């Protein structure tokens, strides 16, 4: 029972982070048809912001608070200067985002010197959850993500701007024809997606250590989540992230259970468990190319 609680907790924690990362990516992808290949670097920027704040002597939580806003500004600037003019050709836009991600990644590599940096979490230690000791910080992440999701939901369903977003999400052409200012919408969405990614990066840097290559690993996992969950809805990416979020720690835990008397762990090394996530996800995507929840287009 203890094991089950720990497992569910771990899965929830990782999924929360994935949700924050993926949501922005998915919304941008479905609304504008552009898969932002530099999205991982927004996560990196968020983590880097926390690091900078710490370097300046400010507390980590201040950095975490500032991260989404600062990254949103960065996202906005990128959208206005580069992406905006490339909406007509999504492929070029994708390559451009790839290049931008590369620039950001290498810039940060110069700034932090290619090493790994450990950041302390604002709330250290553990709390007791149903009799099991779990990391306090992860609990906070799960809580914050939940709150954020509720807030997003309210925003999308109760405000007129939210309505415009949902409309543009499902059918951009019609939205434009109905007089929705897609320029403003796109700019806002891009910045919002960046903000979420930045927040994800800021929140999870105490767990994952800061390094210049943080973005790449999240890009791959985010891509798989988006593909799994389907594009065009709000719930799709959440589901996709939940699945990936379940698999990454889940497969590691799988190694601890006995199967037909053999320890799965003896057959599967941790590295195989990790690669298995990719393989399984790719196979699922192949057989269900539109993802689990299919309403929109990519």
């Amino acid at each position, binding site marked *: 029972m203890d*094991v089950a609680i*720990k497992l569910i907790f*771990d899965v929830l924690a*990782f999924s929360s982070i994935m949700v924050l990362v993926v949501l922005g990516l998915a919304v941008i992808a479905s609304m504008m048809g552009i898969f932002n290949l530099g999205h991982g670097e927004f996560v990196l920027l968020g983590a880097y912001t926390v690091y900078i704040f*710490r*370097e300046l002597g400010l507390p980590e939580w201040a950095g975490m608070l500032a991260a989404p806003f600062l990254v949103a500004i960065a996202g906005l600037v990128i959208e206005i200067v580069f992406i905006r003019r490339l909406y007509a050709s999504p492929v070029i836009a994708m390559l451009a985002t790839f290049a931008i991600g590369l620039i950001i990644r290498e810039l940060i590599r*110069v*700034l*932090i*010197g*290619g*090493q*790994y*940096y*450990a950041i*302390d979490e604002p709330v*250290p*230690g*553990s709390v007791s959850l149903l009799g099991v*000791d779990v*990391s306090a910080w992860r609990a906070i992440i799960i809580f914050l993500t939940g709150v954020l999701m509720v807030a997003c939901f309210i925003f999308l369903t109760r405000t007129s701007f939210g309505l415009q977003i949902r409309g543009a999400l499902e059918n951009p052409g019609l939205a434009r024809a109905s007089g929705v200012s897609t320029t403003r919408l796109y700019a806002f969405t891009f910045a919002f997606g960046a903000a979420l990614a930045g927040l994800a990066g800021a929140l999870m840097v105490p*767990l*994952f*250590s800061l*390094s210049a290559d943080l973005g790449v*690993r999240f890009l791959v996992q985010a891509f798989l989540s988006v593909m799994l969950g389907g594009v065009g809805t709000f719930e799709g990416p959440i589901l996709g992230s939940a699945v990936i979020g379940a698999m*990454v*720690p889940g497969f*590691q*835990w799988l*190694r*601890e259970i006995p199967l037909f008397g053999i320890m799965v*762990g003896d057959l599967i*090394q*941790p*590295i195989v468990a*990790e690669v298995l996530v990719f393989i399984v996800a790719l196979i699922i995507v192949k057989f269900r190319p539109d993802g689990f929840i299919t309403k929109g287009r990519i």
Partner: protein
Amino acid sequence: MANKHANGGGGITRRSLLRGAGALTAAGWVAGFSGGWILRPRGAFAAAPIKFGVATDITGAIAPSGNSNWQVIQLAVKKINDAGGIGGRPIELYLEDTASDPKVAVGNVLKLIQQHKVDVVVGGITSAMREAIKNPIVRRGKTLYLYPQLYEGQECTEHLYCTGPTPAQQCDELIPYLMNTHGKKRFAMPSANYRWPQLLNKYARALIEKNGGEVVFEEYYPLDQLEYSATVAKIKSEGVDCVFNTIIPPGLQAFTKQLYESGFQKDGGAHTCVYFDENSVNYVPERELEGVYTCLDYFHTVDDPVGAQLQKEYAEMFPGTKYLFTAGSAATGAYRAVKFYEAAVKKTGGDLSREAVSAAIDDVAITDVPGGDSRMVPGTGHCALNMYVAQAKGGSYEILSSANMVPPQECG
């Protein structure tokens, strides 16, 4: 040895490097025409210089260790040149940055060999780097190679000499100490998945079982794995009383944090990691380091006048540097490498050909090195070292036991 990373408490490597570059020029380093840095000896020397190549990680993840190696080598060479060089010949230093990236390193090392035609190369810190550059140096470059870092052993390549501790040297003191003095019997081996932990664990396991202990589990994780909750849970549930840790950064921080948070050390568990040294407080918070056991060839707290004097001179030559002169970063091994080479060339009477120096260095002893005297064990390419078992207490290391001239037991 393993990868080593440090965050230096906020120092930004490249910036300090650029600052350092200015300091380098002031100190007489000259940017080579097409590569690296060259330090020409000061003063007038009658004879042609000896070309000494250094290939270490000045930038990248291993930069803290690489920079400390580089600075320590400069100190060693300066002392030799100030005393008149080796047989009247000064040492000329050539530096190439291996950038913590084996792929890049292969190309840069080529510069040392083919362009500068150095007589010897000291360098490489991680095992991966050593594997990558030993070929261009030893085989293709036909040059002598001295490797300064603690590592997994079994490097028996001819003309490649290791001046850092081997698994035997580290474990032969540490494991019996833990088992006999502290009664630890149930060991866990969480490890990074590559060669060093695998071979080290093999040796440690044999020693543990010989002393009546048990290895409860031995697992290998990808270097950047950050999910250790399953592992830590197993440690606690299986009643492990000693964790023989060979995880390296970036997984290290996550692991030590999760281990600490589980209350393992609080409940009396012993945490041991054989590459921890005075630098480690820079990348793992002190509270998580408290009480960790390690075994190396030198600590700042060792009662060793030579070491103390060298630390002073090092602080004078590099005031305020954050790259400490420690054993876990291969700096002591690098210093030893220079001294071994000096002793060998003295023995050959100035003959710098690889065959001659290699034959000489194979059986030579040195004094005047931190941690105590050392000597090469003939025919093995490794050296006997004084080893110290120590425990981290409040940021520095308390020496618990020591042994002199521990044999390396490699390639015999």
